[in-house]
């Protein structure tokens, strides 16, 4: 009899627990209803890519020395460097350079190791085409600069969460003058410079006072 009663009690407790969990779950979904949508209305609104965004690679033909470092550091030896040896000047003459972005993984090794900084990463990520072969960019296509999200008049640029002012969650309708939380890199450098300048003056002052004491 007692075991039966215990069973009934356990069953009831389980049922009450289940109802409790359900209520907790409902409170979570209900709370989500009053939260701001995270939607970015894509072709009309775009997020501003961060400073170190690794997008399509930009290439400056005139800076390139055809050293092929980019090919060696590339995980799949992707860049095609087409050069010929000029026997008279005994120098490489670059004829063509191309990267296939249908194959590139945007790791940025080539950019990292380029000795003349002729490679750089842009913020361009809209690389969809009807034919994958048109993703094979030659030196002319690689030399084009992407349209920046912030300067495109048809796009409403939105800042990413980390770039919003302190306490702000909604990227809409924030004046561009309002700075993000924390200091910008330029501000940090400025601060360091100021501090070192201050250090120098105090050091000079102490040197002078020490010299005076010696005298």
């Amino acid at each position, binding site marked *: 009899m007692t075991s039966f009663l215990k069973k009934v009690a356990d069953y009831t407790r389980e049922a009450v627990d289940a109802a409790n969990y*359900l209520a907790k*779950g*409902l409170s979570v*979904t209900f709370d*989500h*209803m009053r939260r*701001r*949508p995270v*939607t970015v*209305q894509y072709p009309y609104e775009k997020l501003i890519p961060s400073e170190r965004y690794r997008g399509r690679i930009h290439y400056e033909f005139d800076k390139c020395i055809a050293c092929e470092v980019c090919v060696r550091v590339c995980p799949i030896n992707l860049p095609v460097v087409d050069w010929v040896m000029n026997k008279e000047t005994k120098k490489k003459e670059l004829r063509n350079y191309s990267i296939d972005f249908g194959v590139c993984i945007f790791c940025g090794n080539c950019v990292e190791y380029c000795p003349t900084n002729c490679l750089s990463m842009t913020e361009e990520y809209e690389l969809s085409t009807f034919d994958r072969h048109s993703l094979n960019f030659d030196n002319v296509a690689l030399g084009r600069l992407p349209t920046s999200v912030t300067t495109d008049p048809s796009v409403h640029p939105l800042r990413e969460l980390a770039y919003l002012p302190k306490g702000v969650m909604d990227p809409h309708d924030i004046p561009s003058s309002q700075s993000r939380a924390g200091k910008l890199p330029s501000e940090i450098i400025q601060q360091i410079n100021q501090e070192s300048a201050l250090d120098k003056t105090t050091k000079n002052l102490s040197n002078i006072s020490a010299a005076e004491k010696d005298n």
Partner: protein
Amino acid sequence: MIPPAPVLLALAAPGLDLELSFSQAMQGLGLSAQLAHILWLPLPMLLVLVAAVIGVLVTVWLERKISAAAQQRIGPEYAGALGILQPMADGLKLLVKEDVIPARADALLFTLGPVLVLIPVILSWLIVPFGQNLLISNVGIGIFLWISLSSIQPIGLLMSGYASNNKYSLLGGLRAAAQSISYEIPLALSVLAIVMMSNSLSTVDIVQQQNTAGLLSWNVWRQPIGFLIFWICALAECERLPFDLPEAEEELVAGYQTEYAGMKFALFYLGSYINLILSALLVSVLYLGGWGFPIPVEWLASLLGQSIDSPFVQVFTGSMGIMMTIIKAYLLVFLAILLRWTTPRVRIDQLLDLGWKFLLPISLVNLLFTAALKLAFPLAFGG
């Protein structure tokens, strides 16, 4: 029909009777009473059909908007203001889509299936009261008619599942039939407890019996367990999450709807949403006082010094009654949508366990308990 208790009769106002006014007006034009009745008949039917379809459009829109809000999305936005025309656009698209019948399917049963699913659901609107006389027909067997009509639906589902000649469809149809049959019993038992308290199967009597003292006399206080069981079973009957096994898209593609396209699919879609609204309406009728206000109208009228029989008060209470019914129903629809995004789908064995081993015994105990309370306290539990 068993007449309601004399106490209730005294309290119940005659209310707005549009049919009486209509037939009087027609007779004033020189028509016979019978002709006036025949002329009257299609009006409420058409009105309720239109109301049901508009209700579906609103529910579809609400479903999409609330789902979006629960997932921090925006939802439909460009079709009309706030995307209100989105369900119309969906319906129009389905209307002009090609009507495909699979080559190896049973064409007759395939066509008959969605019809057999939709018709009983629409027919059940016969008994949904929006006011004292604001329903198509105050049938004596009222709520029993709904229960019996809703058991036709699984036949249609099974039919379309079988006729599609597709294993997903067949599994979905079988699941739908199993689910409907096992959840109809606790549903009927919880309705039976209500019927026992109000001494009538008629939905109008059930609502009137609840509206003696406004909010406090609603059945939900006397039948809290019955209310929960009814709501769970209604969700299962509507095949809404967490009980949407018949169309579980992750496992069965779309269940019995897999092979359907165009208008036949739209019939299933329409049927499921009309059924959801119907269930919400019936919960509000059976447990939340139907068209009744939280505060009784009689008290309000006497407080304002108005006669309950004056035309203005009658029109006002009539329209407010419709509003109250719809508000209550849509609160329940909102709850159903919120539940959809809260609860995971149950397994088929869990579903049947819940139906047979939990809801059925509990609803039986609830019924017996109600009977005992009715004998012990006839005043509070409808003697």
